[in-house]
């Protein structure tokens, strides 16, 4: 896509996402301008074992430690942090 450069972000996975993918922390190349639903789809494409989690449970992304609704447009810069957030269960 012209005008959208590719950058490298940190990718964190927790709980069921971490177990399914086998990854807790890595990096990923993503377009600097996209939306969170597309970002999650890119993560699932790279880690197909996440698909069962994402299909069955409301899984979202946190971008720079903020929970983001799926479909929200984001502008990312080099070194930003995205995290796969399965449904939380603290307390």
């Amino acid at each position, binding site marked *: 896509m012209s005008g959208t450069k590719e950058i490298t972000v940190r990718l*964190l996975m*927790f*709980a*069921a996402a*971490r177990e399914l993918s086998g990854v807790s922390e890595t990096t990923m190349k993503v377009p600097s301008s996209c939306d969170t*639903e597309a970002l999650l789809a890119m993560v699932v494409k790279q880690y197909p074992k996440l698909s069962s989690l994402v299909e069955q*449970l*409301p*899984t*979202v992304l*946190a971008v720079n*430690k903020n*929970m*983001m*609704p*799926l*479909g929200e447009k984001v502008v990312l810069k080099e070194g930003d942090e995205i*995290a796969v*957030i*399965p*449904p*939380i*269960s*603290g*307390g």
Partner: protein
Amino acid sequence: MAVQNESGNLVTVVVLSNEPLSLEALAAKVTFPSCGAVATFSGTTRDNFEGKAVVELAYEAYDEMAEQEMRAIAARARAKWPGVKGVAMAHRKGVVPVCQASVVICVSSPHRQAALEAVGFCIDELKERVPIWKKEVYADGPPSWKQNAEYLRAAAPRCSRWRSLAASAATPPAAVAAIIAVVLAHALFRRNARP
């Protein structure tokens, strides 16, 4: 990791730690001469879930975001209950055996109503917003990652796919047809009943 902030006379303590939590130590951090109330909540590991024997719970956290969210909850509690002086929120990571605390919340205020209400608010908010995950380990069968109902209720609007699923589940085609039938029947009845 313990973070303590003092702003004027207000004290906020946020703890995320693999070590056992001490209710007494946390309550002491928010006990002040000016406060007549210290209200506390401890969430402890229960030995059963839906008839299954639970051996232990294991917790995992997105550390920095969890601490940030706990601090934000404390700030919101202060905004709702301006009399609150001390807020301590502590969550344990790793394995938490039965009867031990995974979460402790202590709030102090001059009088009891604010402290009691703010503690309830803090645990409700934590269950909805703080990125911590609990794995239930059973005596028999594979362990299971839990999902807080508080989060699921709030999360559906955040997930576009789940929002559309929730909307379609709320009014399945059969229900829509039934509603239309009732409305038409009511309209016909009213027309026929006119003198």
